[in-house]
């Protein structure tokens, strides 16, 4: 195939313990480490492996956000993507608008395959890939742990609640990456230098001519209810006694 399009979202790093702003208006991101959404990194790794097997010619990474998202796109280029597109917007768009923006890029670039992460670890929505596939009127392989390409079709193994489901979908299609699809490579220093020379185009979200919303109103961000501090027991006898005390074992 000619092109694979991969979405990269800039999110608060996996290891950061997030804190809610005191006025409940959002999550503290000042001075917080930001990274590529881990599932998107897996999506990119898969696209790169497909290209390295000779089954694709070009891998394009795309992100939506403020100019800081260039950092994540540069990391994607250092991993091995050929070029990058940043859809610029100061305000984080709603998920449907993201899907509409990605569709516009799909129409301009004409990829045979779009690979996204199955979820972003900030909003945990698990929606963008399925929405893009719906708007594009193409198949989706959501939560993929294995992708086999066979000409005009793809065989996708999906992680579902009862085990693994295998489906066959026609291309072009959208596939979303689950955890066990692959282990992303580490970026090497020379690749970071090389990535600086790769093309990174910017286009304003407003210039894509897409309709925004209808938005969901984010009313309040709160920390979750804390669990009460428990007890420590010294041995198995103490554990069994504590369980009996709570009526959990006979």
């Amino acid at each position: 195939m000619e092109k694979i399009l991969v979405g990269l979202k800039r999110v608060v790093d996996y290891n950061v313990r997030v804190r809610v702003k005191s006025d409940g208006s959002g999550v503290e991101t000042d001075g917080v480490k930001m990274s590529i959404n881990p599932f998107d990194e897996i999506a990119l790794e898969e696209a790169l492996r497909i290209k390295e097997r000779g089954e694709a010619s070009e891998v394009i990474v795309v992100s939506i956000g403020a100019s800081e998202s260039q950092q994540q796109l540069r990391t994607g280029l250092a991993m091995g993507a050929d070029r990058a597109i940043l859809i610029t917007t100061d305000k984080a768009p709603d998920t449907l608008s993201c899907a509409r923006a990605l569709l516009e890029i799909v129409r301009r670039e004409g990829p045979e395959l779009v690979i996204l992460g199955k979820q972003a670890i900030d909003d945990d929505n698990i929606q963008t890939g399925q929405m893009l596939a719906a708007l594009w009127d193409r198949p989706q392989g959501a939560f993929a742990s294995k992708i086999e390409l066979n000409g005009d079709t793809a065989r996708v193994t999906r992680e579902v609640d009862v085990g693994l489901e295998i489906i066959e979908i026609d291309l072009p299609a959208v596939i979303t990456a689950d955890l066990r699809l692959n282990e992303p490579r580490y970026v090497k220093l020379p690749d970071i230098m090389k990535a600086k020379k790769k093309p990174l185009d910017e286009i304003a979200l407003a210039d894509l001519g897409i309709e925004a919303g209808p938005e969901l109103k984010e009313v309040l961000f709160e920390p979750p209810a804390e669990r009460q501090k428990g007890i420590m027991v010294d041995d198995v006898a103490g554990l069994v006694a504590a369980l009996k005390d709570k009526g959990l074992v006979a």
Partner: protein
Amino acid sequence: MTKILIIADHDGQTLNPATSKSVACATEIDSASIDVAVFSDNVSEVAAQAKQLDGVSRVLTVENEANKHALGAVLAPQVVAIAEGYSHILGCSTSFGKDLMPRVAALLGVNQISDIMSVEGTHTFKRPIYAGNVVLTIEAPADLPVVATVRAASYAAVESGNDAPVVAVDCNAEIPSHSRFVELQAGSSDRPDLQTAARVVSGGRALGSAENFELIFTLADKMGAGVGASRAAVDAGYVPNEMQVGQTGKIIAPSLYVAIGISGAIQHLTGIKDAGTIVAINKDEEAPIFEVADIGLVGDLFSIVPELTAALD
């Protein structure tokens, strides 16, 4: 007028208990009616279970050979075709609902609310974000359909004392042929289902091998418990993916959860926040699992677990 449509999750024979929990959520929304839609190649058995759920007004059935396997891309246009007139279209936060509902939302031109954990108003809901470390109150536009999934762990199943009418509905949607089911590789187990079990015993990386994981199975069988695992244990190949508990696995709410050799990454803890009692057994007294455990025991699981199994005789 508020009218709710719930898309049933099932395997062709049995209604997934998550559907009953979605009905429980729907009963908290001030509404005129709650209909449950069953899409299948053979609707009768599942419809017979759905009609018993308390609070359900009608069971709508769409029987079609194409609906034998629940592919989101195949079902979404059919859901849209029968969704007209409904103010709320709810699905379950199961792999089925997560695949299907965003596709429905996009076709209807609305955003989706994922993982409703509480109802604050007809269009206002709470949901977890950042692996459950933040709770977001979110409000959908009042003049558009609400498309949402319901977080099963936040609700108890409704009783089954109802006898709602079952109505076959015409569905004139164009069904795509671009997505085809090939096979399902489901683990077979006589143990209680992880997502609905009252007790769950989970093992982590510290088990060290698939063979050692037998210790977990033996204890679980003694307790009549379902078996789960941390991501690390699944990634290491000790157990299959369907046993993973956490942000990217299953979110569960058993009355007793026993975490063995699991350090307790935030991504794991989000999967067990609603458990009644959490027991942690870990050799590292600094492990974060002890911050959420109701009962903690520091020590070597390889001596503790057999001893505990014997003690429960």
